[in-house]
């Protein structure tokens, strides 16, 4: 185990370790949903960082692996519900792509909770709150991610 890994382990044992979670949010639904959560003052853990993309179909699986490589503890890809995609069909490709990706990550030994995908519409502020809260709890329970991580 490298020094970083030991450090990470040590950090996990400390109460104050906080996971870092990356959310890829499509501009039209999930980003708007998160905005709505804000407007409604719906509190959720401050661990999530939203990265805005035009469509969930823009999220390249390589971005997700890269995030794990660079030390993220959990990733959420979120977009419009099927049928609601601003670009008509983007999320259908997202769905196919990440159904496969999810299984691949699991097959590689990732804990399934570390990578999730969800449909969150612009009106689902509470759902955004609930999803990221749950995700944060799941990942806190798992501790810091070391898998796929660049320890160099």
């Amino acid at each position, binding site marked *: 185990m490298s020094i970083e890994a030991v450090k990470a382990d040590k950090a996990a044992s400390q109460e104050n370790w906080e996971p870092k979670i990356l959310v890829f949010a499509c501009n039209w639904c999930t980003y708007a949903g998160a905005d709505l959560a804000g407007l409604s003052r719906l509190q*959720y853990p401050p661990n999530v960082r939203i990265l805005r993309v*035009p*469509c969930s179909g*823009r999220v*390249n699986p390589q*971005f997700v692996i890269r*995030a794990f490589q660079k030390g*993220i503890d959990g990733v959420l890809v979120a977009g419009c519900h099927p049928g609601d995609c601003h670009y*008509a069909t983007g999320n259908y*490709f997202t769905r196919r792509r990440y159904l496969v990706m999810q299984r691949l990550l699991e097959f590689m030994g990732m804990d399934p909770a570390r990578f999730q995908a969800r449909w969150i519409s612009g009106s689902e502020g509470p759902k955004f709150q609930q999803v990221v809260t749950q995700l944060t709890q799941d990942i806190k329970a798992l501790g810091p991610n070391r898998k796929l991580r660049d320890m160099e």
Partner: protein
Amino acid sequence: MKRVGVFICHCGTNIAHTVDCEKVAKTAAEFPHVVFSTDYKYMCSEPGQMVIKNAIKEHKLDRIVVASCSPRMHEPTFRKCMESAGLNPYLMEMANIREHCSWVHPDKEKGTEKAIDLVKMAVAKVVKNTPLTRSSIPIHKRALVIGGGIAGIQAALDIADAGYVVDIVEKEPSIGGRMAQVDKTFPTLDCSACILTPKMVDAAQHPNINLVTYSEIEKVEGYVGNFEVTIRHKARSVDVSKCTGCGTCWEKCPTKVASEFELGLGTRKAIYTPFPQAVPNKPVIDRDNCRYFKTGKCMVCQKLCPTGAVDYTQEDQLETIRYGAIVVATGFDLFDHSVYGEYGYGKYPDVITGLQFERLINASGPTAGKIKRPSDHKEPKTIVFIKCVGSRDEAKGKPYCSKTCCMYTAKHATLVKEKIKDSQAIVFYMDVRTPGKNYEEFYQRAVDEYGVQYVRGRVSKIYQKGDKLIVKGEDTLLGKQVEVEADMVVLATAMVARSDAGDLARKVGFSYDQHDFFTEAHPKLRPVETHTAGVYLAGACQGPKDIPDSVSQASAAAAKVCGLLSKNEMATEPIISAVNESICSGCGLCISICPYKAIDLKTITERVHGKMLERQVAAVNSGLCQGCGACTVACRSSALNLRGFTNEQILAEVDALCL
């Protein structure tokens, strides 16, 4: 090194209450490429924007990050601010530290920490931003309407009235469509032909409208503002320029065949117009049935034609015309009820569809408006109407509601009661849905004033017994079996998409749903547009609709077309995909993934080891691309990249967050 300026907004206390803005600004000043960082009470205000503009000047900033509210709110504001400071508006990124941070995280320390991360991501991204500019494409001011039913006619008239040339392409010999087959219209019971025919004539006589009947769409190329449409003019065998529509030919033609217009209830000749009020009133020869075309003998029509208009040698002709916009209004078909064993698999002649019933009660129909049973031409006394035949039936039919059946069945039942005094009209229904102006009242009148009998329940079986049809079903309200001895049964069959709807959608290049109805760009906010820019929808081709809905959608589509054609050119989005041709292998996966058909293959020539060689690469049409970025993920070698959201930008954000 770039020269990035970072501006942290307090939003009054909205942000500053739970985020230490000063600390965020101070921390951001240390980020790579950041040369200036400050915080201010209201960045979006006039003085706030002045802070930005002055800093740009003073510190020679070449790009900025504004950390404030959601970009969905003020992105345009700060882009304009950039522009007025002389910078490209796309060299600005926003960090959302209000909706995504201060408003949701009460812990100031953690909120501040998160705000710093969000700013860090935005800085990392903006460093990779490049100036983006809009370009424009010309708009050809001519519209095409596919389908000459009421929706197509209405759309064409509206567009034409606005001063644009519009062509209606109709595959039948006459315009008019389904509405021409209908007898009376609900809820007013005015005669369909009386309100439709004037519109057909208006269209025919309008100086801006060209009727292109008996023609079909062969091929559509190009894109918004510049569609190249190839139309197949089917051989009519009649020279339209000579024909006066006198009717001698179809009177004398010796061949009778079942009339499509009359839905098999009547006949027509081999040379025919589909119905008397046809527009144009010029016949076509049905070559499959014409004696001359089958045997080489006859030629009665040609001999008798006073103007010598009959021309057996005509061939299909292709014509390519350029259009700026396309309205698709191809209407619907009826569900084939022969899949239902309980209704007799379509074998009983006196079990007919609602549309056939329209022809039976129509004064110019096969029975001259007298209600007669198809089997023995007797007047039926007891008529059973069955609703939801094929609609709302996941198992054998369609899951959706056909929307019009409740009303036209009420209309039919009313008309039966009106025309046959001692008759009985019994309606089997699942629900009665009448959400339209004066619809519910109409239905109530049918029940209360005309005494139409409504039985809630499904029909389980119809069978022939002597000259009667025994209709067995259940009255679910009374909870008992019902059996009716009927003379005729009218099925309210579902409205379904045209059998060739999918072909047309693929030809023009827009999407359709699992039932082959055409898909609107957004179910609520863009109901008449398709995903393909410049292509609009009107009428029942988009989903079951009655006449008023079709007409209003047609006018809406026309308004969209006029809006487009009113411009000489159209600005294109700067956030679109771009191809790196040196990397692109031309595999074409992006083409199938693009929802807007914005990508094509093109051939390029390049010098390889001293030889000029050709190869294919993807090309993005800037007029069509909407910037979703789906193609960039389909492209394994990253030859496609989305401007404004490039791989480099997103990776920079990911990296910045993680480190």
